[in-house]
């Protein structure tokens, strides 16, 4: 299988696995997870983030932060797959006897920070990047930010700071699905031109189709080649990507499907492959 096809199959697997995991107890955020599926798969399976299978505490690992913490559970199938905890935990998601919670925290192997509250991941990652640089470790931090998360002022506090510090080992990926709970970002509080905002804060910025592994991998290839700037990848995505009735619909943020919709979603996820 070509690398590209492998990534497509893994995204397909990730969406279906996350969906079934969330449906076991009907807790979680499916559309927010689906908008960033290709981002996470590219990071972990596209040769971008460096990690040691089975060793979540390797001090030289790259750090991956799901700063949009409501979708951190999208990482669980991947973290299990790379041997950070047993795959059986996925079936115990949010159950009293289970390890995995709806909002992730560092008690779960592979979760680097508690990010249920928005606007923390970038600053914590910046601290790790500074420590790593000072210690001579080649550690990068990849921070998946929600576009709605970019309303938080703390994101921009760190954006300024990271540029000043020249943290070229820091990568922000903005999951630009254009929706928050009450509607379209551009109808609520405008975020565009979001790429220009990051650029004006001193970041190297690239804007890509966030469902295209090819485009994402091209963007990730710029890590460390930014002339001392932190890198921001604005990934244009679709919230709920892969489930027809959820795509681009803000009301599905944390709603759970009816039995009929559940079957429809399963059919969609079985047949849909995101192949851009």
């Amino acid at each position, binding site marked *: 299988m070509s690398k590209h096809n492998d990534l497509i199959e893994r995204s397909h697997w990730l969406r279906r696995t996350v969906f079934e995991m969330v449906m076991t107890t009907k807790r979680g955020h499916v559309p927010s997870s689906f908008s960033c599926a290709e981002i996470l798969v590219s990071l972990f399976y596209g040769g971008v983030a460096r990690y040691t299978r089975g060793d979540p505490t390797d*001090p030289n690992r790259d750090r991956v932060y799901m700063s949009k913490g409501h979708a951190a559970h999208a990482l669980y199938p991947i973290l299990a797959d790379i041997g950070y905890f047993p795959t059986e935990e996925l079936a115990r998601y949010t159950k009293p006897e289970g390890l995995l919670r709806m909002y992730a*925290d*560092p008690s779960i192997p592979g979760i*680097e*920070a*508690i990010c*249920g*509250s928005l*606007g*923390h991941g*970038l*600053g*914590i*990652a*910046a*601290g*790790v*990047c*500074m*420590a*790593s640089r*000072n*210690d001579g470790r080649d550690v990068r931090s990849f921070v998946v930010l929600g576009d709605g998360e970019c309303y938080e*002022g*703390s994101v921009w*506090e*760190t954006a*300024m*700071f990271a540029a*000043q510090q020249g943290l070229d080992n820091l990568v922000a990926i903005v999951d630009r699905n254009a929706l928050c709970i009450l509607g379209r970002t551009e109808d609520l509080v405008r975020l565009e031109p979001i790429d220009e905002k990051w650029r004006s804060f001193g970041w190297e910025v690239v804007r890509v189709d966030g469902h295209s592994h090819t485009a994402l991998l091209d963007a990730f290839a710029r890590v460390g080649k930014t002339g001392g700037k932190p890198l921001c990848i604005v990934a244009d995505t679709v919230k709920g990507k892969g489930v027809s009735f959820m795509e681009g619909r803000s009301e599905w943020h944390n709603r759970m499907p009816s039995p009929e919709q559940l079957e429809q979603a399963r059919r969609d996820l079985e047949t849909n492959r995101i192949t851009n």
Partner: protein
Amino acid sequence: MANPLMRDVLIEELCSIARRDPDVYFIAADLGAAALDSFREELPRQFIHSGISEQNMIDVAAGLATCGKKVYCYAMSSFITARCYEQIKVALGAMNQPVTLISVGVGMGYDDAGPTHYTTEDIAIMRALPGIEVLSPADAESTLAIARHTHAKPAFRYLRLERPALPPVYQGDFAAALPAGFARVAPGSKVAIVSSGYMLHRSLEARALLAAQGVEPAVFDLFRVKPLDPAALVAALAPYDAVVTVEEQWLAGGFGSVVLEAFSDVGSTKRVVRIGLPDRWFFENGGRKPVLDAFGLGVADIARAVGELHSSPGREGA
């Protein structure tokens, strides 16, 4: 020799520690100190200016701490507490990161500045966080010993520094008191005053005033309100008929509440009178001392409260 500023004592010691320990990091959110200039110059790799961005400061500190760094965050009291409370709660508290928050100018330390710069609630809000250690030194000796303690035992910690230089309370005996979290700093009988920081000095002044009238309350410095062994505090206060707590805080959940909780937790019904700030905002000019005098925290107010308890019949506690 003039009394040194607490912040200079602390930072000088931290600088000396940081020269030996490259894992010590100091983050400032644009607050200076004479001692900080040499730290910045000598140890630029270990000094970080976060910008006037306290949220960023705390999150960056958390990230550094996850890599094993011993991090100190430094800002004015108001801005290192309520301003970034959620970052403290989540990134330091819930993630259990050993970061020391150095809070300068507690209470009404920034004279005339008003509610934006006064921290008259910081004890209540900071001690509410699980696992935090809350310390309030009252002089240079206690500040120095606490500086060493923060490095020897890295922890999630809130360190309350007074802005003005204060005269000595301890004479080489603070280090021995540190493990308990409180110390009797003046002997007495019948009534015990419990206070800390700036108000400890006012309490000692009140004791001096009362001595002329033949009344001698003991004075206790409760410099660590959390963690606290309630049984130990209650035992230390057992010889006295009544207790007066003195704080430059609103009473809701503050310093006096700590003492009341200790008595309640061990089932004691000892008489405890709390003296603190009235439940209002303070916009008055004139500086810290006149404002405290005008709102019930004058030396005479403390002396009066003690005197009343002294002359009233004692009530045995548990």
